[in-house]
């Protein structure tokens, strides 16, 4: 009799635990890897959430950026995507048009909306609905090497492209392996590096009439500026074999006078080259005072086919509290997207970050149009040809503009 009762109790307990497990809801999150800190951060957040919500099971899947789009493509095509995923906001339009991303407005209370700087929420709004939350935001500014400036006798940080050219030549004259201006000519954002000069000369990526802005005076002048920098030896040699990371590596070694990149370089310098004397300044302006910086956000989206939207939202809610945001933003070296985070001393007192945030009013984001990846590739191809001297600026840019118009027109 006792044995029976015991067995029943055991079975009952087993059943209950199974039921308990079945009741645990799983939320899968695809996380794009920024650095070695990304994975651990999200794992920590997941654990904290699970402790506060015992029925929840958060699974973090870390994916390297280079293969993120490939992975998402295969996942979605197989109906095996996660519930949440980080994506580049420039991809958002495809996700929205194909009904992949779910609108988030029903979950967003006014209080939630107020947690953000409006400028960062805007890129994710389409047709009046919000499809993603800005999880990372960045802009670009110019880093310069104070030691090299001193050695070359440069007293004022260049503020126009003309001044930059002069300063760069002086710095390059310092030695064989020293370059004045670090120019990126390879892989992702090669086109953006070109845009810094393009915008400074008054260029617009997409003109009002909907055609490409590459066949304009601004573009020709910008290309000629870069080409003359290359030809006069003011940049590192072999521009087209340097991606952004390569140029950053040169800068960290103290071999480059100036380069344009994102806030995370400050963090890297602190860890890898703490003795480097550097400063952060605005991206140079053009003859008419125009200047532009590249604003980038990455968004976290919820998939329309997610079966655990409520729970996924709860996790998002937690991720976007000040404490967790501050940790992420600081660890990765991004710009704060939440006003409360921006007020924290780590950010408010950060001189480097100030240079970036000062540029935000001039921030241009990648146009939210389908086919942007292809357009960026065509632009990169064209400027690479120009850098190599395989094509004249006007010819290459006009040809690219024509191809891009074809893509825009579709």
């Amino acid at each position, binding site marked *: 009799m006792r044995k029976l009762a015991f067995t029943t109790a055991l079975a009952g307990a087993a059943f209950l635990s199974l039921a308990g497990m079945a009741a645990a809801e799983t939320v899968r999150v695809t996380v794009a890897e920024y650095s070695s800190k990304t994975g651990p951060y999200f794992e920590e957040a997941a654990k904290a959430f699970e402790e506060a919500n015992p029925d929840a099971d958060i699974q973090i899947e870390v994916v390297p950026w280079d293969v993120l789009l490939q992975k998402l493509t295969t996942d979605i095509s197989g109906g095996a995507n996660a519930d949440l995923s980080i994506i580049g906001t420039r991809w958002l339009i495809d996700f929205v048009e194909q009904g992949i991303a779910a609108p988030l407005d029903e979950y967003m209370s006014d209080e939630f909306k107020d947690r953000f700087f409006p400028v960062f929420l805007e890129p994710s709004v389409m047709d009046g609905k919000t499809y993603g939350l800005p999880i990372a935001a960045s802009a670009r500014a110019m880093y310069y090497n104070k030691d090299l400036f001193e050695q070359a006798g440069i007293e004022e940080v260049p503020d126009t492209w003309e001044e930059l050219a002069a300063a760069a030549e002086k710095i390059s004259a310092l030695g064989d392996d020293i370059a004045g201006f670090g120019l990126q000519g390879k892989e992702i954002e090669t086109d953006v590096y070109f845009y810094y000069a393009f915008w400074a000369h008054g260029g617009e990526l997409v003109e009002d009439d909907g055609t490409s802005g590459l066949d304009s005076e601004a573009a020709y002048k910008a290309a000629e500026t870069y080409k003359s920098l290359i030809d006069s030896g003011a940049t590192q040699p072999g521009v087209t074999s340097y991606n952004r990371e390569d140029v950053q590596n040169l800068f960290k070694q103290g071999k480059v006078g100036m380069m344009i990149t994102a806030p995370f370089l400050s963090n890297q310098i602190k860890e890898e080259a703490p003795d480097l004397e550097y400063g952060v300044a605005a991206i140079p302006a053009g003859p008419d005072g125009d200047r532009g910086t590249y604003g980038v956000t990455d968004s976290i989206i919820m998939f329309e086919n997610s079966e655990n939207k409520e729970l996924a939202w709860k996790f998002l809610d937690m991720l976007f509290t000040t404490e967790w945001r501050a940790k992420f933003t600081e660890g990765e070296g991004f710009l704060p997207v939440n006003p409360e985070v921006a007020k924290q001393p780590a950010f408010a007192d950060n001189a480097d970050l100030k240079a970036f945030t000062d540029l935000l009013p001039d921030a241009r984001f990648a146009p939210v149009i389908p086919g942007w*990846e292809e357009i960026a590739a065509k632009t990169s191809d064209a400027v690479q040809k120009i850098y190599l001297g395989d094509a004249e600026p006007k010819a290459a840019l006009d040809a690219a503009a024509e191809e891009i118009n074809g893509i825009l027109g579709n």
Partner: protein
Amino acid sequence: MIRSPLTNPYVLILPGFLLAAFIILWPLYQLGLISLNEVNRFGQLRGFNDAENYIAVFTDPDFLGALWRTAIWTGGIVIGTLLVSVPVAMILNDDFYGRSIARVIIMLPWAVSLTMTAIVWRWALSGESGMLNSGLQNLGLIDQNIQWLARASTAFPVQIMIGILVTIPFTTTIFLGGLSSIPDDLYEAARLEGASRWQTFREITLPLMKPFLNISIVLNMIYVFNSFPIIWATTQGGPANSTDILVTYLYKLGFRFGKLGEASALSVMMFALLLAFTILYVSLAMRRDSK
């Protein structure tokens, strides 16, 4: 002979056939299907569009460039490997001090994943921070850094060289096997008749090696044609698509631009091309007698 399932050849090959077929035929079918449809960037079919995808690929100027370069890439590596592996195999077949060590070294590239090999080379080829340049400078061979990966004229040959280096282990192994199967008496007889080394090579070694040469050419052709990591990790097919071969062009088309329909069409075309070449080569160069 006693009949039993174990002596029925069809039963014996069935599991192997099924396994291979399952993994190949279904994806191939999917590929064909996607190539004939209009498909969004996530692989969701949106309706038949006949041969539009194929035409779009065909008329893309980058396609022709990639096609031409694929021919150079494949030919360069296959023939280059052949030219190196034959003498190397002959040396390794002979008895000399340290032969085992030499054999292990020649096989080493096989021990590393192709992707990692490519990444290490890319790291070493960096213009200003790469150890190849610093090594060459230390040896006094160059006095200015060469920007290896900056343009196709320097990058592509280097990529082909890397391709040859990683193909040598496999090819040398095959040739070693072939060489070891040539009976020594033949060489003895030739020596007694006063044949020169070159004559021996041409009249005895080469003809008997022919089957091995052929099989290595066919297999290498197939592997090299589709080889992705080397070019991708070093230049991503750039700058400006100047080092693109068909398979890197395919990757960009499918996973960067999201044009899965065209990418699938291209895959089918690549497969057909490879198939045609192989059949051609096999029928011309190889006389098959099934044993």
